[in-house]
């Protein structure tokens, strides 16, 4: 690349690393909150669990349908 290869590699490499870092960090946060939610849900008594299941969003979180 006429001596510019290192600069191009550095720029694209830094971008790739930033993307990976942000993706991994966000994913870890997502999984942490999801696990916290699941364990909280598991600790509910049957009456409370039925009440919580009335909300569609709660069922959606538990079903792991997102594939995230």
């Amino acid at each position: 690349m006429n001596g510019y290869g290192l600069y191009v590699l550095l720029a694209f490499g830094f971008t790739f690393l930033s993307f990976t870092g942000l993706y991994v960090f966000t994913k870890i946060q997502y999984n942490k909150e999801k696990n916290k939610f699941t364990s909280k849900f598991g600790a509910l008594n049957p009456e409370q669990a039925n009440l919580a299941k009335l909300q569609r969003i709660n069922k959606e979180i538990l079903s792991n349908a997102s594939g995230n």
Partner: protein
Amino acid sequence: MFKFFEPNKIFLITSRAFKYVLFLFIVVLSVGLTEALILSPEDYKQSHAVRIMYVHVPAAWISLGIFSLLTFLSLIGFIFKNKNLFLISKSLAPSGFVFNVIALVTGAIWGKPTWGTWWAWDARITSMLILALFYAMYLVAWRIYEDQEKVFKITSLITILGIINVPIIKFSVDWWNTLHQPASINILSKNTIHVSMLFPLLIMTAAFTLFSLLIFLMKYNTELIKLKSRGLDRL
């Protein structure tokens, strides 16, 4: 109108959209990288160093776009007392900040072979650095304030103050003598960039937009789960 932004409804969309956005991102990024690194021509002055433009410019555009969106959503959220708009803003901010940092770092890398220096207190670089500070303040405010009303007010204030800087970034190259060249891409007048370079630039911009959408979806779903988790505590 705001009924559309209710978390219960929006979670169904955001949780299912993820895999499609991820697939689209991989496809568009692959095309963009092939164009940017292999197919696009070298510049007659900058030679292959011009390829840095394909990451630097989209990153700068998206960080500016996201900050403008943050301000708009915070203002609307504040006026109409809609908490969900604040959650959307909060979920957009991390990718905006990372794109801002990418623009600064890749700009420094591009500066070395073209200007002979990694850094200069040029009007555009300095105003981009100020934008990064506003992003940092915005993200820190969400971390340190626990009272919701307070954090809504403070983050709105940060975005309103920060948005003043956005037109300064845009027009800094016209208002002052800077190392940066004037804009090559104009909506209202003729572009001064050849289509063989414009095409990969637009493809890479699309790929970066899809990436920020991907991060937004994950972050927004995380925020909704947190909200629902607090809801379980109240049962």
